[in-house]
């Protein structure tokens, strides 16, 4: 279970990224976080993974109170989360296989388990023939699929996808969204931060609309409606 309680993120007197955000996400949910650029979607994601700290309020993730975690405890939290970024963020010096394996290696999983799991997950995202390729040898869609494989390989409770289709053409965008839906159907909570209206509307899932740092709308089977 994820919960934001009266969360504020204020950078300075002229810049408030989030204001009194209250949000609760249950296990297994698929939630779209929507809003214009600068609405606070990415800040919400950064607060959840501990990359930034809230100015006020409390953030819960399972047994963790994220806002109270020290630098040394953050890696432990992040191993329960899979993250997919708009710009893929693959390690340039590692092959597709090694990028996916890295998420297991940091958690100290044994080599035998890694050798078994990674090809399975890469097969699931349709990249079993590109395991030995480096990121610069892959297309945008392929890179994002490697990123998704990396995000899911350690079976996290939650996958956060921050604008995962922002750098992709419509065909590859749908490919990625279908993949994320499939992962959600297997029981993983999915948080999709996006500003792509067509995608959100066709998903027919819960939609949380942010505007200027506030939660404006929170609807089951919602639509992307801009005020």
């Amino acid at each position: 279970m994820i919960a934001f309680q009266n969360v504020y993120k204020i950078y300075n007197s002229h810049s408030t990224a989030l204001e009194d955000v209250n949000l609760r996400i249950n296990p297994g949910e698929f939630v779209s976080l929507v809003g214009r650029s600068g609405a606070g979607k990415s800040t919400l994601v950064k607060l959840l993974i501990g990359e930034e700290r809230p100015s006020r309020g409390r953030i819960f993730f399972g047994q963790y109170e994220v806002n109270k975690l020290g630098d040394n405890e953050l890696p432990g939290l992040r191993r329960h989360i899979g993250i997919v970024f708009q710009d893929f963020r693959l390690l340039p010096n590692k092959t597709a296989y090694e990028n996916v394996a890295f998420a297991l290696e940091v958690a100290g999983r044994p080599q035998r388990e890694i050798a078994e799991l990674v090809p399975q997950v890469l097969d699931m995202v349709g990249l079993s023939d590109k395991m030995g390729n480096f990121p610069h040898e892959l297309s945008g869609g392929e890179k994002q699929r490697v990123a998704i494989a990396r995000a899911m390989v350690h079976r996290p409770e939650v996958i956060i996808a921050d604008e995962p289709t922002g750098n992709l053409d419509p065909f590859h965008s749908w490919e990625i969204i279908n993949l994320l839906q499939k992962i959600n159907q297997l029981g993983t909570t999915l948080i999709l931060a996006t500003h792509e209206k067509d995608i959100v509307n066709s998903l027919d899932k819960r939609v949380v609309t942010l505007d200027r740092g506030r939660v404006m709308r929170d609807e089951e089977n919602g639509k992307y409606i801009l005020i």
Partner: protein
Amino acid sequence: MLTIISRIFHYGFANFWRNGWPSAATVAIMVLALSMFAGLIFFNAITDQAIDSVQDKIDISVYFKTNTSEDQILNVKRSLESLSEVKRVEYVSTDEALARFKERHREDELITQAVDELTVNPFEASLDIKAVHPNQYASIAEYLAAPNLSQYFDKVTYFENQVVIDRLVGMINNVNRGGFILTVILALVAGLVVFNTIGLAIYSSREEIGIMRAVGASNALVRGPFMVEGVIAGVLAAILSVILAAPAAYFTSGYFEVLIPGFDLFEYFYTHLLSIFLYQLLFGVGIGMLSSFMAVRRYLRN
């Protein structure tokens, strides 16, 4: 724990190899820095040798009145030898002094003839005294000035050469001090250059560090491979700088032999190869690890 350590080494080696040019550039800069360090080691060896050869030329000679018996001279010799400041005392008897004089002027017939015509040996017996350190001559001279000893002396050369000896001692001290300061400054400059090079290489990896942390890598797992890369660069640079120093020592050896007779730089390099390599290794690995540690630290917050 063992798994994590072996992964840190594996990542470090793999990254070093795959980074290619940036790794080669870091090693090249480190080779330059270490070569400078090797240069300093040579410089210190050369100045030490130069100082030794100058020091070797400084001594005090005490000339005894002709009526002093050999026993009395040997007593003075023994008492001097008991001083901690004294390195060695050489006794030159009147006969020995005459023989040395003849030997020195063997080629000069006029002097040889004149000496041969002498019926009495005009030379005085003497003691040549060497101090452990040149600045100890003053205290030895003071010891010799005591009346119970000075009654036997005709002259003590220290008092004649005092100005020259003092100046030489001053120069030696300055060269020592200057050499030390120069070593510290240049080692610091070399260290800073390497530190900045590694800092820049890690700056270009800052996104990668962010990704590792986002995926849940602990600080040790993020920092470790960079430190391993620093160590590899340090070891390679130490080996290469020693390989480069060999021909440098070989070809410049002749020039230094002219300046300081009896000093062979290449022989010094060859006999001190292991210790030079260990110094280089220590400096290279130390600066490589420390630079990586410090440079990664700033990207490990949050």
